[in-house]
């Protein structure tokens, strides 16, 4: 009844091609952004900022990057954490070694360096496909983390490669409190998400999808495979790199190479699977789900064992958590292989008719 496009006429190409063609969606998006920028900072507590909201945005950005590569260009990658590491360490080194470089610029440069490394490790994708490529990206994962540990120059000679991020100062304002950091991260993520949305709607995104659906056919109808695949690797790694820089500067403060382990790569992969492969919205939903699930289990499981008066120790609880996590992933893949984003789409279809049956 309320969610209908009836009566909204499009009179120009611009109106026809906008990201949110339905007025209700546009209003919803404005409300969402207003809540994120204004409402949340007023009400959220410090714990929410630093333990949930900031990591959520950062992981959503990383998931977005992986989604571009895996969801849109069809190249499965298990090395996204390594590209985050490249971004983090590059941003750190730019801050350290270039006097007076603005922090935002060094974030961007961190992303650019990650993009360069991404292109390098994307080169094999021109020749190998599918699982062979997935395993090949593991080479990037292990090699990069090893390099960061073993070359002391990269971490300014600190022991075992730990770096402590510098202060974030933009136009003389120091971003110190969790709230400030949240707003900074939110701003960057919103801009980059908008850019990604436009990228995948446009020429570049369509060539990615053509290569994903069938690369030989795409080549025959004139897409340049090399350029398409390498841009996908570059853009994806750029997003992961920026996410990594934010991870180091705005979330953890100090990071070590081993923090960007294969486990983190898998976590990001799970986000896009659960959220929806090939969907910008899915990256956000998936990141929220994967981050909130352990928090939820942390609260629920001890409470549950108490009410049932079962003697469960801490180790068992963490085992049960791992089990439930794995089981949920299998469950989602069986029940809704297109992810939570698809559920949202179905809900919207239903909403258009509601409350009438047809």
């Amino acid at each position, binding site marked *: 009844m309320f969610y209908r496009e009836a009566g909204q006429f499009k009179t120009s190409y611009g109106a026809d091609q906008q990201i949110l063609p339905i007025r209700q969606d546009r209003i919803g998006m404005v409300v969402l952004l207003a809540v994120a920028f204004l409402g949340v900072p007023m009400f959220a507590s410090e714990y929410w900022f630093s333990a949930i909201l900031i990591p959520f945005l950062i992981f959503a950005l990383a998931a977005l990057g992986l989604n571009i590569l895996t969801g849109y260009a069809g190249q*499965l990658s298990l090395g996204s954490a390594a590209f985050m590491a490249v971004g983090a360490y590059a941003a750190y080194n730019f801050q350290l070694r270039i006097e007076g470089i603005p922090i935002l610029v060094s974030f961007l440069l961190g992303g650019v360096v990650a993009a360069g490394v991404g292109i390098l490790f994307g080169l*094999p994708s021109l*020749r*190998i*496909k*599918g*699982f*062979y490529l*997935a*395993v*090949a990206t*593991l*080479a990037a994962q*292990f*090699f990069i983390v*090893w390099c960061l540990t*073993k*070359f*002391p120059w990269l971490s300014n000679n600190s022991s075992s490669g730990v770096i402590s991020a510098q202060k974030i100062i933009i136009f003389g304002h120091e971003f110190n409190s969790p709230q400030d950091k949240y707003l900074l991260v939110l701003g960057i993520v919103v801009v980059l998400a908008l850019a990604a949305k436009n990228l995948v709607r446009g020429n570049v995104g369509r060539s990615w999808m053509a290569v994903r659906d*069938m*690369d*030989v*056919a795409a080549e*025959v109808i004139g897409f340049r495979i090399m350029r398409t695949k390498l841009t996908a690797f570059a853009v994806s790694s750029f997003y992961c790199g920026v996410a990594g820089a934010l991870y180091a500067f705005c979330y953890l403060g100090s990071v070590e190479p081993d923090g960007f382990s*294969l486990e983190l790569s*898998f976590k990001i*992969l*799970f986000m896009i*699977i659960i959220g929806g492969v090939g969907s910008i919205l899915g990256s956000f939903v998936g990141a929220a789900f994967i981050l909130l699930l352990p928090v939820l289990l942390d609260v629920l499981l001890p409470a549950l064992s108490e009410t049932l008066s079962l003697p469960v120790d801490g*180790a*068992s609880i*963490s*085992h*049960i*958590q*791992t*089990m*439930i*996590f*794995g*089981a*949920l*992933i*299998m469950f989602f*893949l*069986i029940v809704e*292989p297109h992810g939570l984003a698809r559920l949202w789409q179905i809900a919207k279809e239903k909403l258009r008719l509601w409350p009438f049956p047809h």
Partner: protein
Amino acid sequence: MQFFFEILIGGLLSGVMYSLVALGFVLIYKASGVFNFAQGAMVYFAALSVVGCMEKGAPLWLALILAFFIMLLFGMATEKFVLRKMVNQTPISLFMATIGLTFFVEGFAPLVWGHSVRGLDIGIVDEPIESVLDSLGIVVSRFDLVAALIAGLLVTGLALFFQYTRVGRALRAVADDHQAALSIGIPLERIWAIVWGVAGFVALVAGMLWGARNGVQFALTFTALKALPVLILGGFTSVPGAIVGGLIIGASEKLAEVYIPPVMQAMFGGNFGGIEGWFPYVLALLFLLVRPEGLFGEKHIDRV
């Protein structure tokens, strides 16, 4: 020179251990097109089951039989409750599901059997063989040699099973073409259950040997990461590929670990140990650039 051969032999023998894990991957991939990431977790689960049964008082042989049945049940349950529900989905979805399975097993196994690190004694001591040491002056571990023998027996057994039994023939038919196999009356679901059972058995053998070597602990799940480069080097679909790949990876990894870091140290200064973690992957990657389907993999022809 002696030193070189010692490392080479040690590498080859440890490569056989990698092959064992890779074999489990190959079996399932060949028969059902599923890239089973959970193989490493299965190795852990199998080893824990053996140790767990022995702690309950069972002798080694009984524990092995019990663990075999547990793995068989586990494999069949996986096939029935996860993979059968995912028929017709993309290979990547299936792969992700096995990552989910990995997490499930990594939680489930220690929950049932306890998570402390335990030793597993299968009656072979890890000491140099004296006759070889005396005559050639090369240290060859008895344990590694026995492990290699067991792996050899396993592979021969599997090859015979595939070649000469009725079920083996059906397995090869399914591996070739699901639909054609189904249309001539091969029960696809039963075949898949059998394959998962066999993969469980391979995991049990690998878990027993790895567990006896390094202790039964969570690190056993990382054997999967050791097996992956073996797999891409040898080709996903080839049993001999898994063996040859394992030998190449094992030998080159150990040689590289000894000979490359000093060179790098001379060039850059500092400590460059631990290249074992990534060297096999880079090596496999270089191989792939020449042969994109691995050494023995089936050539993939794209049709539009």
